[in-house]
């Protein structure tokens, strides 16, 4: 990237972060696109089809483009490019305006390490990218390991050593459920740890404890899976609620009250219903066209399609 492009990208006062409300026309287009793409993605429930593929590609492309734009404006530009640019200008006695926060020439070090990452694309210099990874992994591990040990090992151990398996409620009475919970946690941790000790043969009492560990693991996985299903249901509920709201002729009272007074929400004009019909018609048309093509093409050496 040459200096003029860098200067242009780093210009102060460039486009500020976007607002979620970008005017009425944008809101109308956004509403119809949101409904259309939601329905297009749901056509996958029927089967993989070109409409789903189109929506999927647009979604991935738009998401990544938006993320890149946001990453530039919220991360790279304010944290690296602008302070470094100002520091460089100041170093050669041409200050580019008032000093920037965190303006320092030391930023050259992370900038160079960042550029090293891209050397993965140049085989001869790819080894330099390991310096960046080594720094990143080393710094993360150095910061994290001591704190992880305290938070995830010492704290729980301290808790169990302090309370054992006897819990009390707020009034100081013995709490059955709390005590059962503590007992289950203690037994579960020991049993699961023994299950993962493979240097001892699992037979006799060790086998019994390891089996108990498996039961605890299965209960844990079951609870996690149940919560996972619940999370997916919540997403479905959110999307269907959105489709229902946009199947009406006018914006919901909720949307009206939540919108800024100078920018009322657009009326959906039955967007869901219109787009549902259009997308079903498109899927049917594409299916018929596909069947027509398959019916017309007879592969060499293959028997003609049977009719009747």
């Amino acid at each position, binding site marked *: 990237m040459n200096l003029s492009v860098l200067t242009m990208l780093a210009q102060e006062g460039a486009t*500020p*972060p*976007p*607002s*979620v*409300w970008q005017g009425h026309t944008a809101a109308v287009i956004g509403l119809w696109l949101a409904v259309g793409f939601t329905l297009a993605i749901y056509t996958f*429930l*029927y089967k993989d089809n070109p409409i789903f593929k189109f929506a999927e590609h647009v979604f991935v492309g738009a998401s990544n483009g*938006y*993320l890149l734009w*946001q*990453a530039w*404006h*919220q*991360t790279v530009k*304010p*944290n690296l490019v602008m302070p470094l640019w100002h520091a460089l200008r100041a170093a050669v006695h041409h200050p580019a305006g008032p000093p920037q*926060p*965190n303006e320092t020439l030391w930023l050259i070090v992370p900038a160079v390490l960042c550029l090293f990452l891209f050397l993965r694309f140049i085989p001869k210099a790819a080894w330099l990218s390991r310096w960046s990874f080594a720094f990143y992994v080393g*710094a*993360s591990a150095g*910061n*994290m390991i001591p*704190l*992880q040990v*305290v*938070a995830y090992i010492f*704290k*729980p151990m*301290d*808790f169990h050593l302090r309370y054992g398996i006897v819990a009390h409620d707020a009034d100081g009475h013995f709490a059955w459920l709390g005590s059962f*919970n*503590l007992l289950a*946690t203690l037994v579960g941790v020991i049993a699961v740890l023994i299950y993962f000790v493979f240097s001892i043969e699992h037979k006799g009492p060790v086998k019994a404890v390891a089996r108990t560990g498996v039961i605890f693991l299965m209960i*844990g996985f079951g*609870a*996690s899976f149940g*919560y*996972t*299903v*619940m*999370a997916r*249901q*919540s*997403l*479905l*509920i*959110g*999307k*269907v*609620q959105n489709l*229902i709201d946009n199947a009406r002729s006018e914006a919901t009272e909720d949307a009206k*009250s*939540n919108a*800024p007074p100078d920018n009322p929400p657009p009326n959906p004009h039955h967007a869901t219903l219109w787009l549902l019909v259009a997308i079903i018609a498109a899927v049917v048309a594409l299916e018929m066209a596909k069947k027509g093509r398959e019916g017309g093409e007879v592969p060499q050496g293959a028997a003609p399609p049977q009719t009747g």
Partner: protein
Amino acid sequence: MSPELKKLGPRWVVFGILGLVVTVSLLFKRSTEFPGTPVVKGVYDAVEELPEGSPILISSDFDPGSEAELVPMMKAILAHCWRRHLRVIVMSLQSPNAMPLAQGIVEEAARDNGAKEDEDYALMNYKPGNLAAVLAIGQDWASQFPESYKHRKLADIPAMKGITRLGDFKYVLCITATTSVDSWLLGGVTKYGIKLGLGCTAVMATDYYPLLDTKQITGLLGGLAGAAQYESLVKLPGKATDGMPTQSLIHVTIILFIVAGNILHFAGKRRKPEAA
């Protein structure tokens, strides 16, 4: 697979029934109250106990993929904070996508609750680095957030008065769909001793329950159920309260599918030896 199950085969029958259950249920909403469990009340009580005017930090660490679960949660918490006249500072550790979404949520909630920007709340930026970022703001807030999301200097934001580092916040709430809570736990709780509350997606909830016992978090809001309970506690029914009856109906439907699937499976198994 049994012939009955094969006949039922097309997956769109199952999806169609689920879709119908969700749609019909949402069309005929019923308002229901969800009593707050002690786990959810842990967050509510922590907010309730803060003195008026205290600063509270919300780390909004999710993007639109988790909107359905976490937006109702965040709106209810914001409303609660402003009722208590707390100063809310919002930032993100998750991804650059998170702050534009958070901005929309906070501004909408502020309109509903009559909160003023820069006085009752301030939006900061997304800060990359996870744990490193938390450790850095633990030492000096301004080194990481020299200005707000809208490029205002910290000195010009009344809501930021007296805040020089992470420890100046009376309570930190991490609303997350990622592992950013680990950074808050390690950097915030373990290193700097802050009080932390957690709101997360249902998928993540089971991983963080042990932190309640050890008092490393004051409370936990897990998924839509957690959000609905918080809405009930602050008496502000919203999308989570609307969605929970549907959630329960889907559970019943799925249980019925599992029972029906098992009956058909075992019926098919019993018939096979007879046929042989």
